[in-house]
């Protein structure tokens, strides 16, 4: 009996980790943008573009790694547009981000139908091969996270210490945080606020693109219109829940990933609850977490406030 439950837990961890990776990638990108003072609600659009470009390039090149690169590039292109408008021209970050989401939804849908026809359902993109990490996979329970997972997932894991180190322990990280807390003071201290914010936005775009490519190449193995299904917004919530800190955000993504996996476990167990409720679960849970965790503590002081250099 115990073995049965451990088996279920391992399954949850395995599929939860797999589902957490795109959230973690996008949320980490957003953390850098927000810590530098820019709120990017265009995550969803950037992820969607990454998914489309990743799938298309992966399919044509026959190689998921080239797909990943294309996905990152697509995210960066959109981020560059967003960054130029919001950082250099002080355009409203919320409005521009909302526009970007619609733009990406329309563009990817249009291009998808143009290139692959209306019934692109049979497309199968080349997938990241599942791999098992030699020693870590033998750890009881936690080992499930490291066995038979897409290779890309391990790269996402490796990013955690790097992102946390850069943000918390390097001069660049300090400058980024300073830009988000008090841009004018950072500027006085010699930080190039515009440039740094712009690079943080680009980094965010690249991470979102990678997250989208992950969805297309390591999860769905195809592209479906609107396939990000609100994950960009859940990632925004993950950043808040994780209090703008990479390590906490990692565990927050894992939490959401596992909650998402729970839905498939329940469905597989053949429960009598209508499946729409499971589809709703991630959104409801995100709202509940935000409500109970509160969303103010830890936010950068000058978030979403454009900086005008005098």
């Amino acid at each position, binding site marked *: 009996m115990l073995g049965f439950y451990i088996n279920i837990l391992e399954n949850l961890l395995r599929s939860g980790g797999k589902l957490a990776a795109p959230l973690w990638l996008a949320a980490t990108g957003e953390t850098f943008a927000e810590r530098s003072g820019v709120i990017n609600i265009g995550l969803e659009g950037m992820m969607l573009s990454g998914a489309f470009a990743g799938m298309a390039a992966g399919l044509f090149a026959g190689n998921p790694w080239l797909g990943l690169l294309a996905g990152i590039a697509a995210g960066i292109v959109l981020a560059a547009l967003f960054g130029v408008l919001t950082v250099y021209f002080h355009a*409203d970050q919320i409005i521009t981000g909302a526009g970007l989401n619609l733009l990406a*939804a329309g563009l990817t*849908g249009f291009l998808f139908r143009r290139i692959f026809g209306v019934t692109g359902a049979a497309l199968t993109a080349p997938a990241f091969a599942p791999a098992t990490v030699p020693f870590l996979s033998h750890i009881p329970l936690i080992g499930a996270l490291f066995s038979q997972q897409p290779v890309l997932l391990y790269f996402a894991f490796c990013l955690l210490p790097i992102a946390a180190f850069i943000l918390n322990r390097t001069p660049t990280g300090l400058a980024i945080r300073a830009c988000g807390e008090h841009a004018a003071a950072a500027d006085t201290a010699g930080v190039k606020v515009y440039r740094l914010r712009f690079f943080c936005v680009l980094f965010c775009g690249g991470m979102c693109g990678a997250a989208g490519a992950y969805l297309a190449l390591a999860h769905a193995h195809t592209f479906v219109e609107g396939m990000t299904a609100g994950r960009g917004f859940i990632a925004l919530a993950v950043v808040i829940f994780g209090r703008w800190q990479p390590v906490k955000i990692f565990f927050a993504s894992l939490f959401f990933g596992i909650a998402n996996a729970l839905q498939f476990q329940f469905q597989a167990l053949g429960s009598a609850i209508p499946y729409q409720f499971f589809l709703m679960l991630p959104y409801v849970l995100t709202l509940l977490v*935000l409500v109970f965790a509160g969303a103010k503590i830890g936010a950068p002081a000058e978030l979403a406030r454009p900086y005008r250099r005098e």
Partner: protein
Amino acid sequence: MREKISLFMPALIAWFSAAAFAALLLWLSGYDVGLAFTALWRGAFGSAFALAETAVKTIPLLITGLAVAIAFRAGIWSIGAEGQFLMGALAAAALAPALAHWPAAIATLLLFLAGMLAGTLWGALAGVMKIRRHVPEVVATILLNFIALETVRYAVTGPLMEAAKQFPQTEALAPAVRLLRFFPPTRLHTGIFFALLLAAAGYLIFSRTVFGWHMQMVAANPVAARFAAIAVDRVRLWSLMLSGAVAGCGGVIELAGITYRLYQNFSPGYGYTAIAVALMAKLHPLALLGTAFLFGALENGAAAMQRQANVSAVIVYAIQGMVIIMVAVMGVLEMRKKQT
């Protein structure tokens, strides 16, 4: 007079750049741009029938656009019109069978009340989360949209599914509670007068009431508003609720005027298009009439473009996105002009 020009020009520039962007996109992907744009134009304005159908699309866009404008006016970035629109329609569709034997006038009134109440509640949820727990309204309203969509999907495949159990849709509304289609054979219905009334009411609220003034204060500077003894949180909550009520009303009107049934894809994203509609009108209820009509024409024309030039209608979203981004850019340029 200056005021009017500054309202008109940016909208014109935003539209032209979005159209140029669409033309470029079509040209690059090998379409006949002339053919596509001609089909779009004829489909939107080419005949009395086309114009009436454009007006049909204008109605939900005008109402949801007003809903967005109400929230944005108070500085609340609500993306929730879509979900409130759906919840309004859902409430009306759920209540309708119970009112089958009631007098039509009372039944209609109750349907509208139910829809507005549902929309209000959906808006209030986001509002309470915002003012009590500081949950950003952008995130809360989007998530509520997804929840509303799944609720509708559940309802039309489960408890509210038609008796024939053939399609995932509700039973059709009784003819007595449908809105009159006064310009047959087109589907133009009396909902257009409701929409115009709502826009006029919005104008009065914004320009002639204390509440409208408070909304503006809260949006411009919440800290200053607080010092001026304005209950900032209450203004935010009320504007979200009012916004929800209006969007919910829009859902009922679409249900009672056009579809008669609720189904899975009841809204083709009106609540999202509404953001572009409201922003381009600079949140002005009377300017909304113009922008809602333009976007209605775009929606209607795009369907014709898809039929005749084989250009898929999803391109409309890209155009709307461009318009929104351009409006954000124009806003900046204007601020600069004012400063110099």
